[in-house]
Each structure stands twice: as C-alpha cells, then as structure tokens.
C-alpha cells in the first residue's frame, strides 16, 4: 500500500470505514436530536450573548425536567433552522408586567442581575396559561417596539442553551 493510501485509509481500511460510519451515525444522531449548534444574530440578548457568538442548544434538557425561570431557551418559528433565543422570566399561571422597565411577577419585582441597561418599558399585566412561559431578551436598553418578547407556548420550546 502506498504511503498516501495508508495515510488516507489507515493500515486497516475496513476498520477505518467502520470508524467513519460510526462517527457519521453518532454525529447525525447528536446534531439531529440532541444538540443544535446556533449562532446568535442581533443584539436582543446583550450583554449575555454577543451577536455572532456560537452556542449549543440541548434538545433533551427538558425531557426529564421542566423549564425554569432564568433559563435561556431556543424557540422555534416555522422550523428548527431559525430560532429565537430568549430568557424565561415568568412561569405558567403567573402574572407578569413591566412597569418603568422593572419586571413584576405576581406583583413582586423580579431581580434580574443579567440586565445592565433598562429603558422604561411599560407592558400591561398578562396572566399566563398553563402552557405558556413569558420570555424576553436581556438587552432592555433597546426600545420595547424593537424587541421581540412575550408569551410563548411550551410546544415551541426547542431546548435550553448550554453555553
């Protein structure tokens, strides 16, 4: 066997083939059903996530537990290729409102250490159903009109951002 063929196929081509197939199957399963690599685009999650930064979404994070407040989650639109990345600030059944930029959940102010800048957002109180979470980005220095946030149905939650 020539050196080039040996470098490409290894000393045992059959074993190399098995390794390639196993690697392909594991990658297909991992990135198809377990982890989704995502690239943040936009400024709505600043300062937590810079635009252009790469992250991994775990699709199995909520298989055995429910999303909780403070989790950063991926939300699907028409499919899994374009996702919203937002933080959960209110849980199903809770009441949530913005008053002069401060979030109130069930009437009590919510401590949000991840928020640096706040504009004086005012959003009337809404009560979430048993299937809804309230999500918002960390960048509250934006105008509320330029920021996508609000109630999301649990069926749209794809998974939790791992980092």
């Amino acid at each position, binding site marked *: 066997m020539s050196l080039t063929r040996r470098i490409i196929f290894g000393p045992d081509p059959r074993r190399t083939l098995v390794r390639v*197939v196993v690697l392909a*199957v594991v990658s297909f399963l991992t990135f198809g059903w377990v982890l989704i690599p995502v690239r943040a685009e936009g*400024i709505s999650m600043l300062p937590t996530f810079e635009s252009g930064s790469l992250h991994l979404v775990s699709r199995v994070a909520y298989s055995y537990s429910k999303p909780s407040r403070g989790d950063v989650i991926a939300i699907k*639109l*028409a*499919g899994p*290729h374009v996702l*919203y990345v937002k933080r959960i600030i209110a849980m199903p059944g809770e009441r949530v409102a913005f008053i002069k930029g401060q979030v109130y959940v069930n009437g009590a102010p919510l401590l949000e250490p991840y928020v640096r800048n706040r504009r004086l957002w005012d959003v009337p109180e809404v009560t979430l159903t048993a299937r809804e979470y309230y999500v918002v980005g960390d960048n509250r220095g934006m105008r509320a009109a330029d920021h996508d946030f609000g*109630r*999301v149905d649990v069926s749209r939650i794809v998974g939790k951002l791992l980092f």
Partner: protein
Amino acid sequence: MTRRHALRSVLVLALAALAWWAWRSRETDDERAIRARIEALRNEINASTPDGLGTLAHAAQIGSYFTEDVTIELGEGTSAIHTRDTLMGIAARLQPRTAAFRLEVDDVSVDMVPGAPAADVLLTASFVRRSLSTGEESRDAREYSLVCQKEGNTWRIARVTAIDTLR
C-alpha cells in the same frame, strides 16, 4: 457480539436512517413547484433594483407571484394589503429601501389541501440588514402562513399572514 456483527448492525442502522430521511423528504410535483416558486420570489426580491421603468418592471415581476385578490396581513400595527395592484405599488415605492435588505427563507413546509388546487405553506422569512458602518448583520425573523392557489399551471400566493410566535 463479534466485530462482524457490530459492523453489520452499524451499517443497517445507517441505511435505516438514510431510508427514513429519504421517506420524510419525499414530496409531490406540486409541493416541489410551490417550493420553487417561493425560492424564485425570494431571488426576485433580492435581485438588484434598477431605477425608473426598471423599478416598475421589477415590481410587476414581484406582483406576478401573487393572485389578483391577494391579502397580506403583516400583523399588529400595520394595515392589511389588498390586491396585487396595491402590492405592486408598494413594492415599487419601497424598492430603494428594500435594496438594503436581503431576504432569506427557511423551514418551508407545504401541506396540500385535499381535493383542491390549493396549499397551506408555513415558513420563516428573515430580513437581513448589513450595517454600513460596522459591517455587522442584523436579522429580523418572522413566521408566516401562506395560502397558495394554482392558476392554470402556475402557483400563486393568495394570502400571507404573519404569525406572532411571541404574543
């Protein structure tokens, strides 16, 4: 389990996954035609926009992807657009501004309406804008529901409705 058995299992698993993916990806001629029309519309919108009469021709070309009585509802805070002529007028007026954007379309799913030359389409449309000063791209993604109708041999969009993913 011998190595031979393990190899066979892995190959069978890989073939099964490939077959499942191929089965899921199968689509009818109409579904393929609708996807192609949406792709062509995207390319038309992203095409460079000439001035003067070219702008009108471009707007007319965009209008040809829609039915005569099209209705477009872009959601809260905007009024609905009715008829192809209105749409073409808006397209012609907005072209200098829309030239700064790039439209991307993802996750197109097509459901044929049984017994009718019509289809329901769901997709994500993203308007990507590059900042001239920083070069950074910003993306505004929205989910849309479309109703497509077949007129002769041509699929056209009869209704566009923006979906509020976050309410």
